[in-house]
């Protein structure tokens, strides 16, 4: 009797163990504080929504470890070092912005941990000195494409002949996007009348705006994040300058309209997705996000969701949850149906995707058109 009981207990514990899923640690590096915290929050929220969905049917138990990079490259490198050496994560989602992602990607690549960033768009994230960093991927398009789309839109749709560019010299995203815009704009016979840089902490743009104003540009391209853009836009309108304002995916935050108000109405920006477009995968995610957090997710949140799911799918497909196996499966990602479109990685680990153009009306951002690669 005792023996049957004991073997029953043994079998019971054995089966309990086999129900317990193996734990896989995934790190998230995101700017929860700092100048783009709405992006950081939406990324975190979307990351957790993806993890929740995965928990219902995924193969492993995911232990998420969140690190705040404050949108600062030094904080980001400290955070990733801790995630890799202390927490021993198997993969990393993020960072959000190119200026943090570029140094972080170097470290991640040296330490052989796969990383998928949802939103860092500068080419240098996946390529360094012409060499591909094989552990680094991104779920979004890259700035050469985005800058090109913006410039073409300015020339063809806005009929602009002259443009001024204002960019943040300490930000790879801003600087890169500005260059790509300039190249395409000039190739299409447009003239760049001013190409001015400023520093992250500058608040006084009066000198720069006066410098631009005398050239009377048709369009002013400001490839920076929403906080800075709001500040610059206000000062531009205060000086009486009427040029159309144009920007990139860094504009995509409800705070932009809130802070800038009338100054930003009538402007356009390029983005990864628009909640206005009808698409079943996107709608399902948007509905879930809205239910949980009360507002529609921005592009960065949507991209974080896609990046996370790409990773989780790769994890499940992998024969073992090791970094090498996960890497192999990520590379093989083809036609992943994401919120922001259908995603496949090219040989550089970049996603080949379309861009949308958004116009800011008084009531909020409105979808204008899609541009395919």
């Amino acid at each position, binding site marked *: 009797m005792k023996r049957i009981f004991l073997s029953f207990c043994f079998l019971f514990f054995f089966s309990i163990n086999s129900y317990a899923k193996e734990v896989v640690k995934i790190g998230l590096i995101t700017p929860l504080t700092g100048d783009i915290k709405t992006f950081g929050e939406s990324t975190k929220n979307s990351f957790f929504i993806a993890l929740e969905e995965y928990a219902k049917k995924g193969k492993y138990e995911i232990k998420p470890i969140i690190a705040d990079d404050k949108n600062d490259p030094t904080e980001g490198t400290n955070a990733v070092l*801790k995630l890799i050496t*202390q927490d021993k994560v198997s993969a990393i989602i993020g960072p959000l912005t190119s200026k943090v992602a570029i*140094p972080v990607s170097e470290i991640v690549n040296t330490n052989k941990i796969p990383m998928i960033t949802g939103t860092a768009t500068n080419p240098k994230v996946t390529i360094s000195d012409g060499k591909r960093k094989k552990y680094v991927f991104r779920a979004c398009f890259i700035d050469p494409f985005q800058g090109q789309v913006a410039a073409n839109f300015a020339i063809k749709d806005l009929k602009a002949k002259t443009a001024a560019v204002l960019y943040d*010299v*300490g*930000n*790879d995203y801003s600087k890169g996007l500005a260059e790509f815009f300039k190249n395409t704009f000039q190739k299409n016979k447009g003239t760049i009348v001013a190409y001015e840089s400023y*520093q992250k902490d500058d608040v006084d743009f009066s000198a720069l705006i006066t410098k631009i104003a005398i050239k009377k540009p048709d369009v002013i391209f400001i490839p920076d994040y929403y906080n800075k853009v709001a500040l610059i836009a206000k000062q531009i309108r205060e000086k009486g300058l009427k040029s159309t304002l144009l920007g990139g995916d860094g504009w995509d935050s409800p705070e932009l309209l809130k802070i800038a108000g009338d100054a930003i109405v009538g402007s356009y920006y390029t983005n990864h997705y628009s909640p206005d477009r009808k698409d079943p995968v996107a709608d399902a995610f948007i509905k879930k996000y809205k239910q949980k957090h009360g507002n529609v997710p921005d592009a960065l949140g949507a991209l974080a969701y896609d990046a996370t799911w790409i990773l989780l799918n790769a994890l499940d497909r992998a024969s073992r949850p090791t970094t090498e196996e996960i890497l192999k499966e990520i590379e093989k990602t083809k036609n992943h149906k994401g919120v922001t479109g259908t995603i496949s990685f090219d040989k550089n680990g970049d996603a080949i995707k379309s861009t949308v153009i958004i116009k800011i009306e008084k009531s909020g951002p409105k979808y204008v058109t899609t541009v395919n690669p």
Partner: protein
Amino acid sequence: MRFFIELRKLIFISLFIYLVIKLFFISGIPTDYIIQITLYSFIIVLASLGLNIIYGYTGQFSLGHAAFYGIGAYCTAYLSKILGVETFYSLVPVVFLSGIFTAFIAYLIGGPILRLKDDFLAIATLGFGILVRVFLDNSDRITETLGGSRGFVGINKITNLELSFFITVFFILITKNLIDSRYGLFWRAIKNDELAVSSIGVNTFNAKLIAFIYGCFLAGIAGGLYAHLYTFLHPSNFDILKSIDFLIIVIIGGMGSISGTIVAGLFWVFFIEGLRIVLPSEILEYRWVLIPIILILIMMLRPYGLMVKKEGY
């Protein structure tokens, strides 16, 4: 003669400490992260030692120490990138070379500045610090590698226990010798009463300049080691806040006390970086609320530092 015997004792002690640490690292108990901050603490001790010579011993209030740390870091990283330095044998001469370059800059700056008194010296060094930061921010106009405000990426990770520990110990010993020499005497005397010292015929300006150059030399070397430990440099790492870090270490350790600086430096790094592991990030922010309070209290209660020993006074 007595110096050598004393030095021998210190050399044996340091070798012993090295072996202990090395065994500890190899055993696998500490994580990579702890190893990293241990090495970083040696580097910080070295740089703070430099400031201690400039300020603790000679009484010159410098708010720009981090600028020299940064010059050493960028110089070493740039040279090692263009020369293709990969092993620590090739790194050592590069680090020393950048240290000398940093010392040279200190010489150029020190000349005009060091004649100023207290407050004005503080502002001048602060100004130099900001000038260096602006220069580094615009460094990508000179060459793309330096990265400008986007930071200098892709430095080889070469700094290891041997490099950081032995270089730091080496300079601690040299500094100790300097302190016990004629120069050390001049420096301490100048801090107390410069007018009196110059009236007995000592060229106080030269003595101050030498202290300044030597201190900045140490900062430059420390910077070079730092660059090859963290593999990423950003101009904002070398601003006034970092200079204040060094200042706090010198003050807490006791101005004019070498052992005080060592203890304070080690404690400081482990307190700041080590807490990152232990505490959740919300509480981490309170570090910088407590530190200034402690600083103010020290100023009010023990204006000469927490750990003054016979060495200093």
